[in-house]
């Protein structure tokens, strides 16, 4: 039996197909203007890779942007919040995990789950760019590096040039100011990553931490932000081999399987 999960984010859409409690197929694509189109393209792409079609899915769950429309269009049988999906997905990969820090392109969430991966508590920021992937995006461009480079770059910093502002706009101005004065890119990158972690920690404090902790979403791939968060929390986060951007779709697929099992 195959189960599908579709997660449409702000920048990318993901799909995961489960079979026999493992990831059978997956796909990630840049989003299209219409979330339904993104959903269709990504799930069909993931299925096509294994010679499957939508009809082969026993059940599918949608999450993220436009999840309700995706369900209404028949691409999914149910929709779930991305909060539950990220929590469930992370827990399946790491059954000991109880706190999930998900930082996406335009939002950040901290999710607490129980021993069954069920949602216990959460907090979300989707209003302010500071503390989301968008912040790193803007800062990377200001430094003239890619968003993939800004993390590793800070490991060669001699010092951390702290940003004095919590606002992305002022931070950008501040970075320009430092660059004009000849500040090192690595030092600035270190400060940017620390600021990013600081904003996320504000969310973490609201929910509290229960070990073990892990990260999901695109920013989980930034080792510097990860390290700053670990320092601030005083612990090491668990790592895993699955693409961190697939966790939401994975969680959706897991929930699809559970819903189908409950029905039958």
């Amino acid at each position: 039996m195959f189960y599908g999960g579709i997660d449409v984010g702000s920048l990318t859409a993901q799909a995961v197909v489960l079979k026999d409690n493992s990831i059978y197929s997956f796909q990630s694509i840049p989003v299209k203007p219409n979330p339904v189109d993104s959903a269709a393209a990504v799930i069909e792409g993931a299925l096509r890779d294994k010679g499957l079609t939508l009809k082969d899915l026993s059940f599918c769950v949608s999450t993220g942007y436009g999840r309700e429309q995706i369900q209404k269009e028949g691409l999914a049988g149910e929709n779930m919040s991305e909060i539950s999906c990220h929590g469930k997905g992370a827990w399946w990969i790491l059954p000991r995990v109880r706190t999930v820090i998900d930082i996406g392109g335009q939002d950040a969430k901290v999710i607490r789950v129980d021993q069954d991966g069920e949602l216990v508590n959460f907090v979300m920021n989707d209003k302010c760019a500071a503390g989301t992937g968008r912040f790193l995006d803007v800062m990377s461009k200001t430094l003239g590096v890619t968003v993939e480079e800004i993390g590793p770059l800070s490991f060669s910093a001699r010092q951390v040039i702290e940003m004095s502002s919590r606002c992305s706009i002022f931070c950008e101005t501040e970075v320009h100011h430092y660059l004009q004065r000849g500040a090192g890119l690595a030092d600035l990158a270190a400060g940017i990553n620390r600021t990013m972690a600081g904003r996320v920690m504000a969310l973490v404090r609201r929910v509290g931490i229960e070990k073990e902790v892990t990260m999901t979403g695109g920013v989980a791939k930034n080792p510097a932000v990860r390290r700053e968060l670990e320092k601030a929390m005083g612990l090491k986060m668990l790592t895993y081999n699955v693409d961190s951007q697939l966790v939401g779709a994975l969680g959706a697929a897991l929930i699809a399987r559970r819903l189908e099992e409950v029905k039958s």
Partner: protein
Amino acid sequence: MNNLNGTGKAQTTGLFSRVHGLFSVLKKLPDSLSAEELEGLIKVLPADSANSMKSLLKPSIQQASMPFLRMLIAALDETKAAKEQGYKVVLAPFNFPPEIIHAFDKLVPITTEVLTTLGVISLEGQGERYWELAMGLGLPDHLCSANTIDLGSMLSGMDFEPDAIISGCIGSCDVNSKTHEFVSLLMDLPQIALEKPPDNTERGFSFFKKNYYKMIRQLEELAGEELNDEKLRAVAIKVNRCTELYHDLWEMKKLVPCPVPGIFSLFVCATRFSMWGRDEGIKTLEQCLEVAKLNFKSDDYGSREEKARVLWIYLSYYYDLVKFYDWMEEHKISNMGDALQWAFPEPLDLTSRETILDGMIRSAWNNVMTRQMGAASMSQRWIEDIVYIIREWGVNGAIYCGHHSCKQTWSVFSITRNEVLKRTGVPTLGLQGDSWIRSMTPMSVIQEEVDQFVNNVINKRGRRKRRRTAGAAEL
């Protein structure tokens, strides 16, 4: 309730303990420091404290800033010692005049916003960690950092705890009152409410007076002592001396150029909020006046340039003393101070207990923020006061700092700016930021805006005629 940071990491100590510890070091300083000694001190202090001391202990104002610092240290020492001595500490917001508490033997006042400001100017990280603690509880980020920084520290369970909280802004500031109430509920501390009705008439005053007397009874119960007439009178005499000095400084501000350093606004308001009616408060104000007189009498006084006389019509910025006060001075902008110093005190009638208390109640009624934002019309009284001060001091530019949490002033700023311009011709610059947290609006942005305002707005409107008042010249 402990370790509310939710991270599993142990907290060190709270704001009060850290500030008290740091300021205790300053206790050991001599009465004056030479430039080299100051440089040496700055080198050993942490960066944020060093920055503040650079401004506070500048040679040109040291004569006043030393007693000012010692006054604050005395307030902190008394608070720390209170519990050991079996006294009770009463935490109150800035607009609550503390002299009534000084009139009790077994009560010690401490002011939330003074503690916050001391933390912001002296602690590494400027007390932001305590703000983060409060946010960690789920409190919204549109609260006022002025009290939330200190209260956040108290809520951590790692700080000193007062024995009672006075909610003194009921009727003049919702966020201040509600935050204090929240802390009293969470920490299970007795809350004493002092409400002012939005009514400027004698009827309103009578109601406020009733509330004030009720508060006295609650304080007596808390202290386990009755308000003593002799002690009350002794404090009242010193209150009157503070009032006298306040008005002398007021007169000095009429002189052109203004001989009163801008940072003295901070000294005056901190004195009003904490040690009004105390010898330490008197000494601070006396020395502020002396410094102003010395400035007035100095050889180069007459030739000093004064590009603008700028009045901060509500709050100003307190997180970078160098880049705020010193910067304005360097740029020849006379900082006429902010509204926190608008105590408008009147001498107390010492005839009897009733007349003294009546005077103290009037002071509370007329104290900053209570008087303006607690009035029937928030804008009307505020405008009247601004217009009065503009005329008194020859102000030619007004600035509204735009502290984001001041919902009441923000709600009538537009009316106020229009009316001030209409009635006085003085333009008002509107800024946006957080007066106690630097990470909201960088000081460089504030400086830029003030600079533009002074050069392109105030100065283009022409300079006001220089004048000297006969009264001030006799001081």
